[in-house]
């Protein structure tokens, strides 16, 4: 890789009352990328993030953020890292602006300095018109947006976002995802946890899938899908009146086709790319009447399901 590691854990383990929540976890996040921590509920995503921030002590193992040990030097880590909790909370009696200002002050950012920053952030997350309304009147989605602004107000080098899009409407999700996708450009590495796969697929460069506290698979999205779908990323189903062995042979010779299987009148073809045109041409040329062609692309869903079941 050659890239600088921002977040690193070695054999990180956490137990609550005898049950192991995080089990010898090894995690690596490179600088200026968006890393997606995936996993079902209770897989240990939140606990991992809490340990990385030094908010929870690990039973064993090491968590490092920018080389600082999260357990021993939590303050140094917290200066660099922003954290959006899963259930973000604000002081209801303060306005959005005051809430952000409070956090800025805790980070020793002067009011003059934070003023413009807060203005811009509220604009970016789309709640600028609510800046001077008490947060108690905010809806769940608006609080979530404010939460994103809250993380960014200290200009973190790395942002830990726990379910950043929970409670948002579809438009809000896209808005926030765009914002997250742009963070590496301004020098903020992002670690986000989620169980919504398509979001992760949309913004993350690398992912790690957790199951029962263990890292099932970790790596960049591209290399993962290549690895997982060694026998092809697409599945094309061709329905004909009568598939002949010759036809199967002809299709098998098309470049990019990995496997051809006949199931009754349906041919199941796995390919590396979208070869519908070539395949239907071959079918028609071999004089077999073509009824329909369907294509299905494997997504992160399938990676996820595959490893989740294995895990």
């Amino acid at each position, binding site marked *: 890789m050659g890239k600088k590691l921002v977040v690193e854990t070695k054999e990180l383990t956490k137990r609550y009352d005898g049950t192991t929540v995080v089990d010898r976890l090894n995690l690596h996040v490179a600088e200026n990328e968006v890393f997606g921590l995936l996993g079902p509920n209770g897989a240990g995503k939140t606990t991992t993030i809490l340990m990385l921030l030094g908010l929870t002590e690990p039973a064993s193992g090491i968590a490092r953020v920018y080389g600082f040990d999260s357990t021993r030097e939590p303050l140094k880590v917290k200066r660099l890292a922003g*954290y959006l909790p899963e*259930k973000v909370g604000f002081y209801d009696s303060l306005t959005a602006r005051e809430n952000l200002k409070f*956090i800025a002050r*805790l980070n020793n950012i002067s009011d003059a300095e934070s003023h413009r920053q807060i203005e811009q952030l509220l604009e970016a997350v789309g709640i600028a018109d609510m800046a001077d309304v008490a947060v108690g009147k905010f809806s769940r989605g608006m609080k979530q947006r404010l939460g994103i602004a809250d993380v960014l107000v200290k200009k973190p080098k790395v942002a830990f976002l726990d379910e950043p899009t929970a409670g948002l409407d579809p438009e809000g999700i896209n808005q926030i995802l765009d914002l997250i996708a742009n963070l590496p450009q301004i020098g903020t590495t992002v670690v986000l946890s989620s169980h919504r796969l398509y979001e992760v697929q949309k913004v993350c460069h690398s992912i790690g899938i957790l199951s029962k506290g263990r890292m099932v698979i970790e790596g960049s999205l591209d290399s993962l899908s290549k690895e997982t779908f060694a026998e092809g990323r697409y599945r094309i189903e061709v329905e004909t009146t009568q598939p002949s062995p010759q036809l199967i042979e002809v299709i098998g010779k098309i470049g990019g086709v990995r496997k051809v299987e006949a199931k009754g009148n349906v041919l199941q073809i796995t390919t590396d790319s979208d070869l519908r045109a070539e395949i239907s041409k071959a079918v028609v040329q071999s004089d077999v009447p073509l009824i329909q062609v369907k294509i299905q692309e494997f997504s992160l869903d399938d990676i996820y399901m595959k490893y989740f079941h294995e895990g």
Partner: protein
Amino acid sequence: MITILRKELADYFTSIRGVIALLLVFAISAMALHAAFLGIRGETETEFVFLRLFTTPEKAIPALLNFPTIMALFFIPFIGIALGFDAINSERTSGTLSRVLSQPVFRDNVINAKFLASIFTLSIMATTSMLLISGYGLRIIGVPPTSEEFIRLFIYLVSIIIYGAFWLGLAILFSVLFRWVGTSLLTSLAMWLFFGLFYIFMLAPVIANALAPATDGTTAELIRNAELQSILLRVSPNYLFLESSTVLLLPLVRTLGIVTIGEAVYMIPNPLSLGQSLLLMWPHLTILIGLTAICFAISYVVFMRQEIRAT
């Protein structure tokens, strides 16, 4: 820490809770003044007239409505509990605690700032009440305080703050121990009712009578019973504070022990000097400070070790 302290203070002064507490301060002061107004008219005693503003003779009003009694049994515990019962757990359930702790602040700064802010608020309330009574009292009776009276009142104020800090510490302790605001509030109120009313008026006399019954009515038996009872009563912080304030505000109280009528005949009915009064109340004050320190120390230790995740 200054930032958190400022925010906490702003919270107290702008919230409905703060307004209600301040109204209570006015009500209590008005009541004390009214009682003093009724009581002092019938006075023939000429010494310590100013102190008498705070200790209306029992003839004028029911004993329970005496100013020091109200302060010891009702007002100070109420204010202490009201300021502290949700200090930590409300922040935990609303999710603001994890947000604040993920900033570069030491964890103890949070609890220290909360404790300081509430003690500060409590001090302002107690001082306001004392000043109101003194000021209006001065207008009513037209007799200025002597320097000794002034010192006695000042020490009384300090002891009020220490006593208030105990209830505050207890309430904060429950807010650290219990996750739900309702539980910590009810537990604090239960402690208050138990020690302030139930224990003093029922349990202590019952235990004393059971352990040292005065069935024959001999002097020795009566003395034993009364001594045991006063030892038992001093378990209650409310009673402890009541006794110490009696010594401070009524210089004529010469002893907190038992005096038989036979002995009393030989006592010279003149007031105790300031130094001697202080000697009498010193152990009480020490115990109150100790109790406060214990409550705060436990809250501190538990809070520092607690998991901070919201649910």
